[in-house]
């Protein structure tokens, strides 16, 4: 896109032949340098993602269990039939969807509140911002252990608050705790992205709206939200796809017990515990497709507001 626009620019300017030749010489050198500088990064990224994902498509079409390596055989789509006809897959899929939707919605609300607090607060702004960053930086596994011990009967301060039940041994309460751990960990990230959007809201506009008698809520919905829309969409897209990958918290908190496995957890179990490369790869491909569909829907729904497009649009 950028190439065509500059080419058009060149065409528009009448240049002598010699000048043109010199320019294109410099242009070619610039291109070469550009490609040269980007090549290593591009090669690594493609080699470690594109090739393996194609390879996993190939593996997903085979019966391939490392416990029975001699039985390896091309079986077409039968792995997909197996996985898609399996209730564990659909349970895990439902759990992952539930966690994704609930955490992203709660994080959006809490993150917006946190962003407003960080943006507007009158006292101790530095302390608030620093402490809000800490959950983002903490190793997820560490946070997960902290939550696990907090809810362990006897050991934990939280478990002791609620009679003497063991919340991590029941499905509903386990899921609630997993979501709590996810929300705690990633709300600050959401808030930071939203805060960057808040910074774009012109102060004059807010003052003018206040003068015209707009209530705080009206100022928020009519002035701030429209300006922040791109930031909100980026934050939502990033967090949705990130939430869909949930693994660490579940692994530590419940290890997938009581039907709390996510799809990532299920794929991991089939692969590393079950050593079934065929089924594991089938799940990998299905997860990849699901994420691609989610991303596609986001970009379609929000059009040019999607990240990346603004990058190209500006050039």
């Amino acid at each position, binding site marked *: 896109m950028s190439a065509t626009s500059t080419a058009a620019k060149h065409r528009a300017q009448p240049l002598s032949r010699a000048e043109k030749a010199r320019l294109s010489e410099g242009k070619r050198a610039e291109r070469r340098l550009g490609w040269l500088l980007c090549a290593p990064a591009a090669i690594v990224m493609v080699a470690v993602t594109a090739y393996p994902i194609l390879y996993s498509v190939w593996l997903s079409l085979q019966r391939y269990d490392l416990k029975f390596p001699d039985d390896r055989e091309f079986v077409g789509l039968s792995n997909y039939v197996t996985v898609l006809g399996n209730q564990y897959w659909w349970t895990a899929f439902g759990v992952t969807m539930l966690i994704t939707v609930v955490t992203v919605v709660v994080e959006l609300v809490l993150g917006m509140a946190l962003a407003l607090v960080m943006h507007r607060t009158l006292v101790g702004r530095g302390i608030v911002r620093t402490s809000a960053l800490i959950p983002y930086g903490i190793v997820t596994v560490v946070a997960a252990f902290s939550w696990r011990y907090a809810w362990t009967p006897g050991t934990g301060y939280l478990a002791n608050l609620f009679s003497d039940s063991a919340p991590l041994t029941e499905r509903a309460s386990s899921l609630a705790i997993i979501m709590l751990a996810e929300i705690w960990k990633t709300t600050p990230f959401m808030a930071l992205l939203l805060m960057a959007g808040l910074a774009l809201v012109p102060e004059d506009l807010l003052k003018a709206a206040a003068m015209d008698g707009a209530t705080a809520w009206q100022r928020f919905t009519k002035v701030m939200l429209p300006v922040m829309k791109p930031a909100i969409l980026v934050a939502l897209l990033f967090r949705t796809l990130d939430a869909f990958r949930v693994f660490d918290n579940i692994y530590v908190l419940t290890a997938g017990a009581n039907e709390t496995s996510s799809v990532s957890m299920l794929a991991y179990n089939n692969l590393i515990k079950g050593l079934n490369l065929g089924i594991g790869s089938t799940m990998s491909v299905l997860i990849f497709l699901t994420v691609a569909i989610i*991303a596609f829907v986001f970009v379609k729904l929000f059009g040019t507001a999607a990240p990346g497009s603004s990058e190209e649009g500006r050039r």
Partner: protein
Amino acid sequence: MESRGAKWRWGLLDVVVVVFALIPVLWIMSLSFKTTNTLTDGHFIPREWTLENYKTIFQTDQFVRALVNSIGIALISTLIAVVLGTMAAYAIARLDFPGKGLLVGVSLLIAMFPQVSLVSPLFDIERRLGLFDTWPGLILPYITFALPLTIYTLSAFFKQIPWDLEKAAKMDGATQGEAFRKVIAPLAAPGVFTTAILAFIFCWNDFLFAISLTSTERSRTVPVALSFFTGDSQFEDPTGSISAAAVVITVPIILFVLFFQRRIVSGLTSGAVKG
């Protein structure tokens, strides 16, 4: 204009935020300082303080090896990702060449890639290549997933640099390469440093790749080692050791956050939101 009451209300909100953010961290710290007898008393503040848990973990080979692995793997991955990312980001910010939009698009796709989709194929590929359960076996995926982050944040930083200086350097006879090394690189250093911190946090944090692509102490990182911790005997609960180890790997991150708070915020948001 702001009344005293408003100040109090904001202060109260601030306290809520700080408590919400810090409680789990303080709790795991508290556990790590508790003695074996008081470990399961459920009190938020330890009644008897001890450093025994820390002594124990630093005496076990399991933890020390994992710590060395974690530091080594995260540092090497960060270094390579930042070098490659700097080169690419410079090209994106400064040069005009076809395929630029594609590169930005691809790195965005990778930032959102479901990492678990790579686990099965990488497991098989690395097993064949002999990379399974080695440092390079983890460093490769870490570089890949740290690269989009570095490319995004760095190209945002590079766009803010006063590029007239580069022109001046070229006028004085420097080539594009020299202008990059001698003029721009020093100016970009703060941005590069911030990006390095973000990349390091990512590598330091990873659990999925580390647990799937390693099998022994040879390359297991701390987050994974934590989940395999056992007590000295099978009757001893590893809660104290796990808490102490958790605190040890949390400290560097908290220090980063404390010292570079402002830069981390601008780094995290520059890539995602454009003004």
